[in-house]
């Protein structure tokens, strides 16, 4: 299944919260350009996995290597510098600023302008980059709208757009379609995945919606009780008995009936 050399290597990854084991000896390789869906019931360890890869949570044991470089122990911003970025289940944006200002800050930091205290943020170069991002993520109409006045779906788009401006090689999305209406979810994912494919970004995303998983991913990692119980293409995964029983819950419902 893995054709390219792995860009991300996870070995013997363990995370314990007291007696609770949130990650139990996880081993997985992710290849460059893959679109990987991470599925699992609530509490299966999906977000914990994303948090460990992005440095938000330190693992209890194990190794996470990105292009050969060990990530465990690195601060979150160093992991961003290395080339891994993320979005959040609850959008993490600057709520008192406009969409344009949010993206300008992201662009300015990504362009290392923050290291130069004498650089004005609002430059023609950054403005041109801003226009580009606004176009690609269809955020033009909301450019001057304050985030607190935005709909949930637009905040999610902004959150992802901010994560992408640093040109990461791996992007982790934590439940990108949560809080987005059924009618909007495919349009939303088309915008996001279209933009990410153009950039050739390797994407891992946590998702509960199996329609989204079936449509957009090339590989599924199914989590159950902190372990990966299935690692296969989406069609096969969604038909897998274990996945149906422990992730989708079909067996469970049948038994109940």
């Amino acid at each position, binding site marked *: 299944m893995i054709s390219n050399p792995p860009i991300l290597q996870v070995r013997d990854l363990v995370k314990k919260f007291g007696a609770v084991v949130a990650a139990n000896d996880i081993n997985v390789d992710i290849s460059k350009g893959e679109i990987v869906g991470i599925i699992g019931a609530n509490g299966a360890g999906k977000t914990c996995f994303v948090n460990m890869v*992005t440095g938000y949570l330190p693992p209890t044991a194990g190794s996470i290597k990105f292009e050969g470089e060990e990530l465990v122990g690195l*601060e*979150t*911003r160093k992991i*961003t*510098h290395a080339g891994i*970025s*993320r979005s*959040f289940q609850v959008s*993490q*944006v*600057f*709520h*008192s*600023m406009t969409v344009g*200002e949010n993206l*300008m*800050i*992201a662009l*300015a*930091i*990504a362009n290392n*302008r*923050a290291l*130069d*205290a*004498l*650089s*004005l*943020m*609002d430059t023609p170069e950054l403005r041109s980059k801003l226009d580009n991002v606004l176009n690609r993520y269809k955020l033009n109409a909301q450019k001057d709208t304050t985030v607190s006045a935005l709909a949930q779906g637009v905040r999610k788009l902004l959150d992802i757009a*901010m*994560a992408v401006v*640093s040109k990461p090689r791996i992007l982790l999305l934590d439940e990108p379609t949560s809080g987005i209406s059924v009618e909007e979810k495919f349009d939303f994912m088309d915008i996001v995945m279209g933009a990410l494919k153009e950039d050739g970004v390797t994407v891992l995303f946590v998702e509960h919606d199996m329609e989204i998983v079936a449509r957009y991913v090339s590989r599924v990692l199914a989590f159950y009780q902190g372990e990966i119980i299935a690692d296969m293409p989406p069609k096969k995964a969604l038909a897998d008995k274990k996945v149906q029983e422990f992730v989708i819950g079909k067996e469970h419902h049948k038994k109940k009936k």
Partner: protein
Amino acid sequence: MFNDKTSKFLLVAGLLLILGGAFAPNWIVNQFMFGFSRALAILGLMVLWRTGLVSFGHAFYFGLGAYAVAILDIKLGVTDVFLRLIAGALVAGTAGFLVGFIMRNYRNIFFAMLNTAISMVLFGIVVKTEALGSTDGFAISMSTILGVSPETKYPLFVIITLVGMVAAILVNYYLKTTFGKLTTAIRDNEIRVEYLGFSVAHAIHLKYSISAILAGGAGALMAMSLGQVDPESMINWTVSGELVFITILSGPGNVIAPFIGSLVFEVLRTYAFELAPQAWQLIMGATFLTIIFFIPGGIWSVLEKIGGKKNDK
């Protein structure tokens, strides 16, 4: 740097004030000197406030700046206004940089009260140390300007106004840089700033150091304006309280606000004291409550509404 409305206004207003000061009576010149000296510290507190941080202990840096002037005067006979100003800002800035390693790890009430604690330690040391003037403090000789001893306080007023103008223009410019824009970003969401690849701790450390330099400069200018320093009026927690009071009174909207707020505070305190010498704090307290309840954006927000325009951030 001078291409926006705020900077142009500061330049014109500063020059007009300098011209007007030549014809103004001494008591007005004094009010402006005290007000503009304090405004420098308020500029620094405004930067912190925009970052979501409030310090209840910046009298520590204000006092360090003032005492640097006094000690240089008494021990080394330094009277030059520029050397005194630089020394005050430098001493406070160095202290702010060192203390910043601790402060950058704290937020909210812990940040506010840790600053108070540090300022009270300095207050205690000064009060108990005879060599530092104890409770009486020191009288400071008149400042000289490049070797010339002025006969009136007007030249010092000119310098304080110019220093205030330059500091405000620099802070205004700073707020437009990426570092400056990070103030609001950090207040809104530290997690996102870190995930964008920037260290929140480093950014706060820088802002804290800037605020310490400005408070130190303010203390030095105040010491020169008053001609004396003592722990009660330079380092005590009530001084920190006054600085926070003026910051809230001014509002965080624009770098011009601290200058207006400081002047209003000076006038308010003077008249409150004249009207009710035994209960002037009552008038100040009532004003503070009015500001918090009715104009939380401070004087600047009122001016914005009157002007009917967005502030020039």
